[in-house]
């Protein structure tokens, strides 16, 4: 069975470590916040100028001046701090953010990522994604393995305009967990009940497969 978006987020949450500062992108990455293990100290960075992002406010307590990078109303937590956008990207560029999770339209086996533009179709912009991928040491991509047309988004080479080059470390999809190695994608885990053959069939890039591939641990 392929994973739901919630389960992808759940799997990525297992990459969190005590004391991490984490930037979560829009979409599936945002859901990771729901699965931070109890008792683990993780501080969420929102690149519009907040460290210590809390949950959505209670109805009636929304503050228009308090939003996340997805423009959603949020709250602060104990120890939160606000800053301007230059400080925000300063801490990102300086490598102070331990883990960045973001979505993608395509990823290549060199670790290239494309997620900001479909020429002639979608004009949204890169937001902070180019800054994040250019500087973060630890980048995990949360994405669907195939697009709506059934085509693989895990490629030998990206076809869309790039967001960053050689930056992705790990990918979690509804089918698999893969690591980007100097020799290409290495299959680490498969979704419960999903066969290695099924993953290979849905992956345009070559996969390095060593020994038995374990199933992901999902609650």
């Amino acid at each position, binding site marked *: 069975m392929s994973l739901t978006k919630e389960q992808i987020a759940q799997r990525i949450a297992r990459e969190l470590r005590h004391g991490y500062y984490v930037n979560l992108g829009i979409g599936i990455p945002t859901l990771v916040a729901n699965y931070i293990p109890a008792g683990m100290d993780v501080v969420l960075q*929102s690149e519009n100028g907040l460290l210590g992002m809390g949950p959505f406010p209670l109805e009636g307590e929304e503050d228009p001046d308090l939003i996340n990078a997805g423009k959603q109303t949020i709250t602060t937590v104990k120890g939160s701090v606000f800053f301007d956008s230059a400080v925000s990207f300063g801490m990102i560029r300086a490598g102070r953010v331990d883990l960045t999770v973001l979505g993608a339209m395509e990823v290549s086996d060199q670790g290239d990522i494309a997620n900001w533009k479909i020429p002639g179709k979608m004009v*949204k*912009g890169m937001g902070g994604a180019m800054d994040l991928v250019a*500087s973060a040491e630890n980048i995990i991509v949360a994405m669907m393995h195939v697009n709506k047309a059934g085509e693989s988004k895990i490629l030998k080479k990206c076809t869309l305009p790039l967001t960053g080059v050689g930056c992705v470390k790990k990918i979690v999809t509804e089918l698999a967990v893969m690591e980007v190695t100097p020799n290409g994608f290495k299959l680490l885990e498969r979704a419960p009940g999903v066969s290695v053959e099924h993953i290979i069939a849905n992956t345009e890039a070559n996969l390095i497969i060593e020994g038995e591939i374990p199933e992901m641990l999902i609650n």
Partner: protein
Amino acid sequence: MNKVVAGPSEAVRDIGDGATLLLGGFGLCGIPENCIASLVKMGVKNLTCVSNNAGVDDFGIGLLLQQKQVKKMISSYVGENAEFERQLLSGELQVELIPQGTLATRCLAAGYGMPAIFTPAGVGTEVAAGKEVRNFNGKDYLLEYAFDADFALVKAWKGDTMGNLIFHATARNFNPLMAMAGKITIAEVEELVPAGELDPDAIHTPGIYVQRIFQGTNYENRIEQRTVTRR
């Protein structure tokens, strides 16, 4: 040293056709609502607007786009505006999309008196086209220039008559950076107080960067994505 002007129409009076403007805000959070309304009323044309976002169809910079007052937008993310997308795809509007951190730091550089910065954002992408690349310690960086803007329009929570500003929560975002970067910076504030009433330790933007200040009115402070936790 009194920087106070009567209101938005006086504050933006000399913004002419073809001016380059820096506009603070992230999404609809912390945008100079009163100044934008006055620019719409004035009908000034061919503006180059530097702002992280382009508002939504019926608010923020979207209001200027509706009236076709914008010639060029320089932004990092413009996903919430259908009219923007239409003008871009039809070629009516020039758009330069740049990384958000680059946008922030090009403002910072202008305010710090530095002509340019080096950033890794965009290396190896189409953003790097035509730009100088320098390698420092084994990593490539792009040369990006400080903004050269005629005016900055910013929104603050509190300000004093000398132009000192304090921002609130994530409405700070690009506002203090743009305030430092404009040749003429116009600050609209929710609460204007006499000089001496703000705690000097708490001021985010020193008034030296601000040329005009006024207390705004009728703030809508619109929420773009209202997300709540059920009680």
